[in-house]
């Protein structure tokens, strides 16, 4: 929260405020002098003492507003806070007004007693005007901030979307698949056709959804099976996907295309470097609160490949951060024989 007074953060507003009170004070003095026939000096002393003091003390009302915002407090608390604050301010105002007048012009105090009730009433009225004014200022500030945040958030989401998209349609995967298709058209046109259809469906799925959208686990799984099916054509017996899926989890929600980079990783680090078959196993658990997806692949630890976390995993963490506000829903266990990824998706 920003506790800076709007007059400090916005000097223009402070100048308008000062001008407003000066003009109001001047008008008051003129009215008192010409229509009420009070002595100019006395009128000046009186008006300036009361009005200028209120103008100065009144700026403090902003803090009362700030600490009793309409959003976070009950109406009784707000009213109570304002009644107390108004009483304190009116008291200080009256007291210092009297002190000032007596200091500047002892005679002016004579007719002071007459208007005490009116004056107190006026003090409370002014307080209300202030409250309305500051709430308006505050509301406007908040509104502007919100607009700014929103556009920032939108830009962030967009960036993430682009980022994610980039890694999902891996050109390496695409071109190699096309090469496999090219090969199959000569030897096995029927399989080539199947592969073209699988590939198209997968591409459509990856393009269709925006990054925040959630789909059913079933839907996500079907499309990832397409991916694995396509890769299976390339890698043959080296790639062995195994699914152990509890049917009651199929309706759980999951961000779309979040599993694909996990399979891609398993293929890249497990299958690709292997000469023996590699099993990629998918299991799941679910409750009302969470869906847990566990993907495991064995790999040859003798192969030294690129260190560090691949772009795929980083991407998933980023997406989890954006969607659920935490990157810790992705857990990795690597025992040098088996690589295990556990993805936890909140269902609420």
């Amino acid at each position, binding site marked *: 929260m920003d506790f800076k007074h709007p007059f400090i953060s916005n000097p223009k507003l402070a100048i308008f405020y000062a001008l407003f009170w000066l003009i109001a004070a001047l008008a008051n003095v003129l009215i008192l002098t010409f229509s009420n026939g009070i002595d100019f000096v006395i009128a000046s002393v009186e008006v300036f003492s009361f009005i200028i003091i209120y103008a100065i003390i009144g700026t403090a009302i902003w803090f009362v507003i700030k600490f009793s915002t309409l959003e976070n407090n009950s109406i009784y608390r707000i009213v109570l806070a304002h009644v107390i604050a108004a009483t304190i301010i009116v008291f200080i105002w009256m007291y210092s007004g009297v002190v000032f007048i007596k200091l500047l012009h002892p005679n002016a105090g004579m007719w002071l007693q007459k208007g005490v009730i009116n004056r107190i009433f006026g003090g409370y009225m002014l307080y209300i005007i202030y409250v309305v004014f500051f709430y308006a200022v505050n509301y406007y500030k908040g509104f502007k901030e919100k607009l700014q945040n929103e556009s920032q958030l939108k830009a962030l989401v967009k960036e993430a979307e682009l980022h994610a998209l980039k890694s999902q349609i891996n050109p390496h995967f695409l*071109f*190699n698949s096309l*090469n496999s298709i090219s*090969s199959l058209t000569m030897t096995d046109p029927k399989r080539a056709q199947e592969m073209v259809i699988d590939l198209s469906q997968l591409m459509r799925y990856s393009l269709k959804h925006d990054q925040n959208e959630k789909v059913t686990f079933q839907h996500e799984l079907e499309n990832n099976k397409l991916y694995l099916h396509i890769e299976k054509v390339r890698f043959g017996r080296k790639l062995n996907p195994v699914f152990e899926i509890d049917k009651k989890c199929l309706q759980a929600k999951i961000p779309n295309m979040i599993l694909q980079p996990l399979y891609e990783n398993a293929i890249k680090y497990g299958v690709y470097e292997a*000469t023996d078959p590699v099993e990629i196993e998918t299991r799941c658990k679910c409750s009302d609160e969470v869906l847990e997806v566990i993907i495991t692949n064995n790999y040859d630890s*003798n192969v*030294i490949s690129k260190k560090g976390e691949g772009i795929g995993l980083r991407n998933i963490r980023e997406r989890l951060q954006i969607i659920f506000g935490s990157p810790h829903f992705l857990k990795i266990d690597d025992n040098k024989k088996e690589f295990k990824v556990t993805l936890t998706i909140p269902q609420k």
Partner: protein
Amino acid sequence: MSEKLTTIIVEDEELARNLLKSFLGEIENVEIIAECENGFEGVKTINELKPDLVFLDIQMPKITGFEMLELLEHKPQIIFATAYDQFALKAFEFNAADYLLKPYSKSRLLEAVEKVAERIKKEGTTSEVIEKISNFPREDFLDRIVVKDRHKIHIVPVDQVKYIESMDDYVMIYDAKGHYLKQKTMKYFEAALNPKNFIRIHRSYIVKVDEINEIQQYEKESYIVILHDKTKLKVSKTGYRNLKSVLNF
């Protein structure tokens, strides 16, 4: 052309191999004498059969196509094949290598084969491109070094290397298990290894920072580095400056 080009295919994917075979089957002057599924097989078969031409996939299990090239004693003409690899493309274009982008057409393949046939007529079967390609400056630092002795191919992770010593046209790479000869220059390794971890301390030595136990004054103006395993290595003046700037002393 009367003589047929003896050709070996090194490609890990069966479908890609099938495609290449069926395309090549229709080209008269090409004779496929072997197929290899990975780089290990590739090295062995190429050194043994000494083909005129090799079709080489870049991304393969165990060792990449580029790493395989470094291990060849017989250096045939190469036609590279890759699906998508920006580093490889740069290297090919810079060194005028023949390459095919997957998926490729038969006419594109024919074009590449004809070019190679021309080149063989002019230069013979030995290819210079291999040398150039394997010395092409990488964008990232090396993770592993592939070496070969008489019987075996070793993959040495860079973090296990202790130091490298120059031996004329070769370098000797020392790790905890032993040492390996490799036909590369010190200059190559100086550029290919991360300078934060490896320092050139002498014309003849590149040493891994973590292996250094002590730097000792030896004579008035010369120093030696003593490694954790008690190996002593000479340090030149420039080498001492390099040590100073990396280790901040």
